[in-house]
């Protein structure tokens, strides 16, 4: 059974001019021990998808669909059960570790709190465990780190603390939302390696959110590509690179910064990303898709599954061959 299964999750937030749809039916699953990459441009709804799992969506949001964690729908949990699930089965690592910790409290309090107040461990055991965890995430001076206040530590150190706290209770599922984006380049790969190692050691599943397709490909078993509040393609990194099935994935691959030649200006996908609530009928990507045809804007386009991959494109079969090759200059702005 999947650790997590999202079944047609829709989310809308109230807005003066009527409700705004942010998620238009997200379906995905994460197997035990699997890392699923969630990739897409900023604003496509990646963070919002994670928030429906933790139930931390904006106040007043309407959420429909099922979010099954080990077969149990977290959307229907009562307050006490929800708190238990959050304490024991889920852990979140967000983009900005500096915002995640209370600036007035020591690091030790942050770590111990998650074990002690959230899970009911006794304080001494929790403290010992916190120290072990800090050592495991590569912090040399554990005493100093425990006694530090957040403003005394670097972003990289803080994110290690957050990772230590996240894996502390060996949750079933890690939700990592661009965990390295806010760090400086030199510590990014270090922190990423620690996260990957900790997760693998403990056999935890993970949803890894990033806008960096390369990074997701390096650490994830499968990748889901998101666009305008829905998933347009799911595949393994290898197949995604070798033969993307969705035009958006193709353009994402072509627009990634080259690792060898660091281009000063990143090639980008032409056109503006559309928000989920702006999508009318038909394909959300039609406005920017070089392969769009009049038929693409008729009716809903379903996510068609084919083994362990899935694509949402009306012309998927005709384009299969063409999309296997880079588009060259066409995609560069």
């Amino acid at each position, binding site marked *: 059974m999947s650790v997590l299964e999202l079944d047609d999750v829709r989310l809308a937030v109230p807005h003066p001019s009527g409700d705004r749809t942010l998620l238009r039916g997200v379906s995905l699953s994460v197997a035990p021990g699997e890392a699923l990459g969630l990739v897409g441009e900023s604003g496509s709804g990646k963070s919002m998808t994670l928030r429906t799992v933790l139930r931390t969506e904006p106040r007043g949001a309407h959420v429909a669909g099922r979010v099954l964690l080990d077969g149990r729908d977290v959307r229907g949990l009562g307050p006490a059960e929800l708190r*238990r699930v*959050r*304490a024991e089965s889920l852990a979140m690592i967000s983009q900005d570790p500096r*915002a*995640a*910790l209370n600036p*007035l409290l020591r690091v030790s309090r942050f770590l111990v*709190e998650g074990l002690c107040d959230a899970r009911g461990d006794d304080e001494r055991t929790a403290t010992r465990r916190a120290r072990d965890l800090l050592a495991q995430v590569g912090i040399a001076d554990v005493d100093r780190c425990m006694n530090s206040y957040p*403003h005394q530590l670097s972003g990289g150190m803080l994110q290690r603390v957050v990772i230590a706290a996240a894996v502390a209770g060996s949750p079933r599922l890690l939700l990592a939302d661009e965990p390295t984006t806010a760090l400086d380049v030199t510590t990014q790969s270090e922190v990423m390696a620690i996260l990957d190692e900790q997760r693998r050691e403990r056999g935890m599943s993970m949803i890894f959110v990033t806008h960096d397709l390369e990074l997701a490909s390096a650490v994830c078993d499968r990748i889901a590509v998101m666009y305008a509040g829905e998933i347009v393609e799911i595949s393994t990194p290898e197949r995604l690179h070798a033969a993307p099935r969705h035009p958006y994935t193709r353009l994402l691959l072509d627009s990634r910064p080259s690792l060898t030649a660091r281009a000063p200006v990143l090639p980008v996908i032409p056109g503006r990303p559309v928000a989920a609530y702006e999508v009318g009928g038909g394909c959300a990507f039609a406005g920017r898709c070089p392969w769009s045809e009049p038929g693409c804007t008729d009716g809903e386009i379903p996510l068609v599954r084919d083994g362990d991959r899935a694509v949402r494109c009306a012309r998927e079969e005709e384009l299969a061959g063409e999309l296997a090759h880079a588009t060259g200059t066409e995609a560069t702005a």
Partner: protein
Amino acid sequence: MQRFVIRRLGALAVTLLFSSFVIYGAMYLAPGTPESFLVQGRTVSPEVLASIRAQYGLDDPFLLRYWHWLTGVLTGDLGESLTTRQDVASLLASRIPTTVWLTAYAALLIVVFGVVAGVVAGLRGGLLDTAVLLGSSVGFAVPTFFAALLLMSVFSVTLGWFPVFGAGSGFSDRILHLTLPAVALALPAAAVVARITRTAVVEERDTEHVSVALARGVPWRTVARRHIVRNAMLPVTTIVGVNIAALVAGATVVEHAFTLDGVGALLINAVQQKDFAVVQAVALVLVAVFGVVNLVIDVLYAVIDPRVQLGGESA
């Protein structure tokens, strides 16, 4: 911390020195002369007037008189009252307890009603929140003197629950006598504090670290206490401090309205009678109290917020 306190005390001494000069000088710029009060409107011969001026040193140059006064103050000699011939230091000492009790009582009311009401309103929301918002608007809008009269007429005159005037003696009698004055004094400040506390709590509730703590399964009560209220106390400490320091000034109005024999009432009388020595001494004490309260607030702030580095440049 120690070095910080010493430095701040030094700064306070400089402030006091400067204030003493301003206070002393201001009395000479004010209309009316002390000797005209001393003769109480009687017609006196120029010789008598001259002897009075000589007795009080009124003919000495300004700076010399200031110097005499200042050295006196530094040795604890605040001079004697021009009207009653009493020693100003002992006069002050007899008046201080009432004012200390009154302001301490009012400060307690500010903390209890202002801070607690603000915290509850911010955490709970709903009807309680509306009630606190409404109450604080009223509390803030009513002038202290009017509040004093209103409280007196309702609770003392009509209901007879509290005595109309006097400061009382002994603990419980004092509390009884000072309740209405303290309420009148605390009302506007408690209203402001409640407002600001509420806003601080609501803002803190929406911070990421709070939603992170909740998303980790930390119980709401713990999050409210450890993360929301604690952090909200940063702005609240400042505003409570400013308001408590300001009580010392507000006390004059209330003491006058309730005919309490405090320092404030002493000041008002002394000003009306141009009793230089008393006005100068009281003004100096007020400045000192204001400075000390602010110092305490700054230390408290640094205790709450580890990012504030005392004694050095703040981080």
